[in-house]
């Protein structure tokens, strides 16, 4: 194992300026990946395994008239063709979603979005399965679709969910946070009020590995082994037990190496269920792996929020209040994955990083004829939308007040001494110190110099923009008293065993999709008990091997599971104290801890290392009353609060006046994620998120035409940044530990995805200021930028 930076090993847990454990160390998972020996779902081959493929609807809204599978069944390599009516007979045609709605596994009555699952073919190989799809004859009676969320509640709009008893419109929910009367009063007396409609368009996480599963049902003992691209193996197991009737102890969900998740692999998709049904029907293992178009057209999209933003301030730039009403497009089924009490996720953190007198938001969710989903793409349960709204509104206010946007933010930050800070919509921000972070980003950027350069360029007719975003996240869901998904509290478990020779295995309930858990979590244990990280194995992604927990999304691995791991290590350490005392024939209270070792107070030469204690525990030492003969422990961690990472981002763009092309010249990101574990991994996660942000701001868009055809159904249409579209990132950090997390860590996985889009858009709008542009909606494609320069705005989609 190589340590790449010369840092003291295992700095004290309380020393928050230095990383935990061994700091920057190479990842334990990398040797297999660089050799092509990763083990992803599609790499799995089981004896006798068959291949499934899904026939999908070509239209967005249509009544299913008839379906004829005769020819497909006659294909010599086809073993089964499953339709909605087959599933109906089994009671499996509809499955519960993570938002207490139901979703069709296969269409029985009506197609509700283009790409919806209509039939499932099981064949001997993947080519034959695809061939057979062509042989299924389906007759549709096409209906008018609802594509625009604004028209979903029009009287006379087609009712999409007529499967739901008594449903006469497309309304899903209304939700609000904050105090309306107070907010309205502040707005009524404010010097300045600015309003703006802001659309966060539909985008897609599009991990490089699409979704897939291999289902292996053993009819003899009734056991199901399901290899799945899932970010939440335990939650999936419970839900599969509920849906399928297979008892939970007979289900094993394995999530092997996952080729990126970003929220795309939280939901339970019909394809997973169909693979299981296919295996039950044929008695053989069945693999189903979607193609890229299936991934983009049918699995969980993200965002699709139409937000009416309003901000109130005094004329000298004191921000007083924020108000917004949001129309949320949830697609054809309400299948967002968020805690039950929060149908709009954590959107109500839209008050951002500012000390406000009042705030109020309402969110209305509607059905449309589009793919279901909505909470995905590293969004921290809709904090993405919240941060985009507030950071755009603050910039628009700055323009109105003719103030520098950095100055306006600095003037309104929540002050360090106000933490823990209760905002106006019910959050308690755990810790923060915003001004130094903002100042560091400005120093790194050379902010004043950039403004001077911009002024000179403007005089020459060149278009340069500087965009700022300062975000506060809320991650690490969450306290079980407030947060559950389908009744499952959002806690996470950890088990730690120290083997007799002093090597360790830690089993965690969260699942890595590239975050490097096998390294980071070993480092946390190393920090707590002094065993080197290379001697600690991290087991994850297998429900038979790991304790229960809700999985990896919403940046919750380090805030929740990381806390569980630190606490289980402390529990082992405390147990080791009693065993060491027995071995040293002294009292536990007479022992003192130094990294990796208990020793006698006042006589450091007399002590026992963790390895010696482990051997003692499993050996013949007479153990004290109540102490088992092992050095193992387990915990389930229920976080007392969420954590609130924050950061300051500055983006510099150049816009080509002839074409409207935006080039991101520089991007400066200063993040504060509390205590840092492995700076290399943190930096990597930030870089990835910044690239997401540039992608969403400039090119990524799942668009639909008026017939409901998805126009972003392949990588030729859904554009993702390559190495040519992004700069060499400039990162910095500050450290403000979380006061309630055992090691002070806050989570970093989604900060950059959440925080960067407004920085890019603010920069583009800033570049276009000479044209009088105050706002433009993402993505800022060359065509849209050019139109904005002509004084036109594209009608919102």
């Amino acid at each position, binding site marked *: 194992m190589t340590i790449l930076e010369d840092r003291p090993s295992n700095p004290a847990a309380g020393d928050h300026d230095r990383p935990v454990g061994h700091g920057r160390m190479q990842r334990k998972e990398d040797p297999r990946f660089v050799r092509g020996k990763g083990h992803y779902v599609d*790499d799995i081959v089981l004896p006798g395994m068959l291949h499934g493929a899904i026939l999908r609807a070509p239209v967005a809204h249509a009544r299913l008239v008839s379906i004829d599978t005769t020819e497909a069944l006659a294909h010599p390599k086809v073993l089964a063709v499953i339709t909605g009516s087959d599933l109906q007979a089994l009671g499996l045609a509809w499955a519960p979603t993570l938002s207490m709605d139901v979703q069709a596994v296969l269409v029985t009555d009506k197609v509700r979005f283009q790409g919806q699952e209509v039939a499932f073919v099981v064949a001997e190989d993947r080519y034959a399965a695809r061939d057979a799809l062509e042989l299924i004859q389906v007759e549709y009676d096409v209906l008018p679709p609802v594509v625009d969320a604004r028209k979903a509640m029009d009287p006379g709009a087609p009712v999409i969910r007529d499967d739901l008893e008594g449903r006469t419109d497309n309304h899903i929910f209304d939700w609000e946070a904050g105090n309306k009367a107070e907010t309205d009063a502040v707005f009524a007396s404010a010097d300045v009020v600015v309003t703006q409609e802001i659309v966060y368009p539909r985008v897609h996480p599009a991990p490089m590995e699409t979704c897939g599963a291999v289902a292996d049902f053993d009819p003899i003992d009734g056991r199901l082994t399901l290899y799945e691209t899932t970010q939440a193996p335990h939650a999936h197991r419970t839900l599969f037990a509920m849906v399928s009737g297979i008892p939970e102890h007979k289900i094993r969900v394995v999530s092997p*190496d996952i080729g990126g998740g970003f929220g795309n692999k939280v939901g339970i998709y019909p394809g997973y269920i169909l693979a299981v049904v296919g295996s039950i029907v044929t008695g053989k293992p069945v693999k189903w792996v979607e193609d*890229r178009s299936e991934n983009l057209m049918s699995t969980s999209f993200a965002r699709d929020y139409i937000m009416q933003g309003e901000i109130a301030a005094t004329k000298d730039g004191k921000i007083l209040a924020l108000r917004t009403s949001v129309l949320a497009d949830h697609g054809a089924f309400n299948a967002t994955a968020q805690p039950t009490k929060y149908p709009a996720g954590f959107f109500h953190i839209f008050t951002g990083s500012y000390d406000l007198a009042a705030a109020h938001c309402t969110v209305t969710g509607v059905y449309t004829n589009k793919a279901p989903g909505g909470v995905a793409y590293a969004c921290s349960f809709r904090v993405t939308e919240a941060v985009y709204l507030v950071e755009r509104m603050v910039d628009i206010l700055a323009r109105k007040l003719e103030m520098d946007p950095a100055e306006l933010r600095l003037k309104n930050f929540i002050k360090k001494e106000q933490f823990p800070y209760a905002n106006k919509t019910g959050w308690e921000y755990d810790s923060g110190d915003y001004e130094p972070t903002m100042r560091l980003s400005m120093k790194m950027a050379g902010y004043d110099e950039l403004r001077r350069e911009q002024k000179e360029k403007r005089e020459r007719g060149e278009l340069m923009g500087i965009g700022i975003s300062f975000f506060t996240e809320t991650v690490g869901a969450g306290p079980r008293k407030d947060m559950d998904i389908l009744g499952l509290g959002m806690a996470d478990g950890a088990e730690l065993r120290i083997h007799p020779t002093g090597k360790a295995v830690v089993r965690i309930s969260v699942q890595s999709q590239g975050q490097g858990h096998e390294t980071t979590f070993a480092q946390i244990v190393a920090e707590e008990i002094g065993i080197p990280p290379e001697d600690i194995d991290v087991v994850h992604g297998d429900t038979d091997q790991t304790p229960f927990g809700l999985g990896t999304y919403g940046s919750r691995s380090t805030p929740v599971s990381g806390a569980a791991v630190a606490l289980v290590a402390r529990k082992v350490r405390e147990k080791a104290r009693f065993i060491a005392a027995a071995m040293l024939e002294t009292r536990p209270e007479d022992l003192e801890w130094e990294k990796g070792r208990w020793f006698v107070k006042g006589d450091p030469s007399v002590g026992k290392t963790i390895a010696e204690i482990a051997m003692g525990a499993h050996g013949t030492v007479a153990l004290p009353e109540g102490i088992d003969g092992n050095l193992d422990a387990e915990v389930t961690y229920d976080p007392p609060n969420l954590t609130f990472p924050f950061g300051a981002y500055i983006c510099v763009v150049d816009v080509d006046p002839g074409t409207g092309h935006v080039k991101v010249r520089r991007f400066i990101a200063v993040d504060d994620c509390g205590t840092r574990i492995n700076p290399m991994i943190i930096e990597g996660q930030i*870089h990835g*998120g910044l690239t997401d942000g540039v992608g969403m701001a400039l090119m990524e868009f799942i668009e639909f035409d008026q017939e409901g055809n998805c126009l972003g159904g392949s*990588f030729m249409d859904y554009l993702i940044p390559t190495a040519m579209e992004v700069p060499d990132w400039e990162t910095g950090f500050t450290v403000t530990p979380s006061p309630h997390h055992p090691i002070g860590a806050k989570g970093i996985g989604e900060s950059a995805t959440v925080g960067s889009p407004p920085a890019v858009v603010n920069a583009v709008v800033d570049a276009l200021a000479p044209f009088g542009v105050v706002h433009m909606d993402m993505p800022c494609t060359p065509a849209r930028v050019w139109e904005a320069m002509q004084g036109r705005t594209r009608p919102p989609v």
Partner: protein
Amino acid sequence: MQISMTINGTFVTREIEPRVLLVHFIRDDLRLTGTHWGCDTTNCGTCVVLMDGQPVKSCTVLAAMADGHAITTVEGLANGATLDPVQQGFMEEHGLQCGFCTPGMMLTARALLDHNPHPEPLEIREAISGQICRCTGYATIVRSIQWAAEHPVGATTETTDEEVHA
């Protein structure tokens, strides 16, 4: 039909359907699963392999078109236990996270360094611009390839225990 090719230095002959894509031939017939598949449209590059030393997207090459050619996959990068400098560079500079695009990225890097041993950062970015990474934001991939350029015969990554625990 019957096809033959050299894969990672080994001569193979197989009976295949003429329509089989090279990526499926490599993954399903030869069980070399380090080569991945990520789109259907030659956009993502997770399927990149080297054909006679040149990067090709194996989802857009028929296996039959590789008949008589030499193919290198990620499994052929290392020389036994000795990693290619590109592989070492990706580990040293955190050029990967989920690992899915990594084999294709490394093979393109190998081909780049074979004909341009000291590429500028922009040349590296151009070389990998036909490939998508969703995790890293590319900067660390560029650094990884630079590391490989600076260490043409690799470097021992072993350190003494003393250094590790210093």
